[in-house]
């Protein structure tokens, strides 16, 4: 055991024995560099935002002229006839995305919970690897899978098949972001709940997941926005429809499909409507994401 004398002076170097150093004033070069680097940072932000605004501005320029009440309330007219709209595709997109979210969000969040709370082992590693691979699978391949899983069995194209294809695409993104967000919740928060006699599954759902809510929702919205504009997986699942369809087991129109069909058609009127459709699609996605954000913010407490 150490004695009294050693703990007062152990390892302490007297200030007087440290060589005198003088810290030079901040040079002109460093001050200039400071401003240059700040400028570079601002410039890169502008470069990142530029394409977004450029796309949006171009869509407004090309599409706004064709957006009117008829476009939002009527179904397509036969080629050559003026007028008509994409109401059925707007509704169809919403239905397909609702199905995709209903299937994909719980599955993705569930997988994320497994990875973060129970997956710190080999099984978790396998799931992580598979989910990363799934994330890299081309969307048209996922369309083929949904074709095999749903369309072949039902014997016809359907909104359900389109929803399944998009759900499969949503799962890996949601799972991995949910995992990361749950891992950010300090262990001390979980321990606080255990210490109150709260069971593990209850802690995970009511404490850990709740603490990570805003991050998990970001992941969900990211996945949603990503699949909302997908066309390839819908080509032979939802298939598209020129008429109203309210049944989830029948071929269903979707905005992205309608844009695709119109854009490759030879008719000028259809080209204009494709631009308008693209604008509506973007506005719907931005609107949905913003609405969720506002709703979440509204439910957050002061200081949280």
């Amino acid at each position: 055991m150490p004695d009294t004398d050693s703990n007062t002076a152990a390892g302490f170097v007297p200030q007087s024995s440290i060589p005198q150093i003088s810290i030079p004033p901040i040079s002109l070069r460093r001050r200039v560099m400071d401003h240059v680097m700040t400028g570079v940072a601002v410039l890169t932000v502008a470069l990142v935002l530029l394409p977004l605004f450029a796309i949006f501005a171009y869509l407004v320029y090309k599409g706004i002229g064709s957006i009117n009440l008829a476009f939002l309330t009527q179904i397509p007219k036969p080629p050559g006839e003026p007028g008509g709209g994409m109401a059925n595709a707007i509704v169809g997109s919403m239905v397909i995305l609702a199905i995709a979210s209903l299937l994909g969000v719980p599955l993705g969040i569930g997988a994320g919970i497994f990875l973060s709370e129970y997956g710190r082992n080999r099984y978790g590693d396998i799931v992580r690897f598979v989910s990363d691979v799934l994330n890299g699978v081309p969307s048209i391949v996922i369309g083929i899978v949904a074709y095999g899983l749903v369309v072949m069995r039902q014997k016809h194209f359907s909104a359900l098949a389109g929803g399944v294809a998009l759900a499969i695409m949503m799962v890996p993104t949601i799972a991995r972001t949910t995992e990361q967000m749950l891992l950010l919740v300090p262990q001390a928060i979980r321990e606080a709940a255990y210490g109150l006699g709260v069971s593990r599954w209850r802690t995970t759902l009511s404490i850990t997941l709740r603490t990570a809510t805003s991050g998990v929702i970001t992941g969900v919205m990211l996945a949603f926005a990503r699949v909302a504009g997908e066309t390839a997986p819908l080509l032979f699942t939802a298939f598209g429809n020129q008429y109203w369809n309210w049944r989830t087991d029948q071929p269903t129109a979707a905005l992205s499909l309608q844009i695709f069909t119109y854009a490759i058609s030879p008719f000028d009127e259809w080209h204009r409507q494709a631009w308008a459709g693209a604008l509506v699609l973007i506005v719907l996605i931005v609107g949905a994401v913003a609405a969720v954000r506002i709703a979440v913010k509204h439910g957050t407490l002061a200081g949280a």
Partner: protein
Amino acid sequence: MGVGITVEHLNAFYGKTQALFDINIAVLANHATALIGPSGCGKSTFIRCLNRMHETIPEARVDGKVLIGDLSVYNGTSATQLRRRVGMVFQKANPFPTMSIYDNVAAGLKLNGFRNRKQLDEVVHKSLHNSALWDEVKDHLHKKSGASLSGGQQQRLCIARALAVQPEVLLMDEPCSALDPISTGKIEELIFQLKEQYTIVIVTHNMQQAARVAEFTGFFLLGKMIEFDKTEKIFTNPSDKRTEDYVTGRFG
């Protein structure tokens, strides 16, 4: 009312490393017992064995016998049932950040399925009152998050949260180590009052604190309980040389 704690031949491990060696101790009901000792000597590990928090760490395990009142901790009792009777306050205040002050205190009851709104209100009021926080938070119980409070207030919120499930034993793992002297004073005062209803085991690095709040003190060194006796005896006339060296500040 509090209940006593009996520990017999307790050994605790992290993987292959043994952290506690053959601990024997009897803690008296409705008294405060302080555990002192240098960092890494097993004090925290020991109190985490009393409510089975130790086993939440991967590869950690325990053997030996622990009785909380007449409840055998490592013999068929479920960890969740046990932890409702043995509350815990941690070193760093850990309120649930997304919950309001009210919900933080009510969390233990709500998450265990208790839904009676009127009784919840009453329990929350009483717990915040007993943790000396009521006057400071009563105007924004539902509006402010638990994380919006100051450090000392957060720690008292955590104490209120632990009291709300009405435990018989309260374990405190260095509850004042991150607090200023004023907040520390408030919490020590609180411990004095809480003793009437709860059995308190408090880990502390601050020997004056142990002397102020506890009737009994245990001294830990390198995973062993060196000495356990009345606080007065430990600080004035310890029977072990190592205890004397530690409390007189010769090492640690």
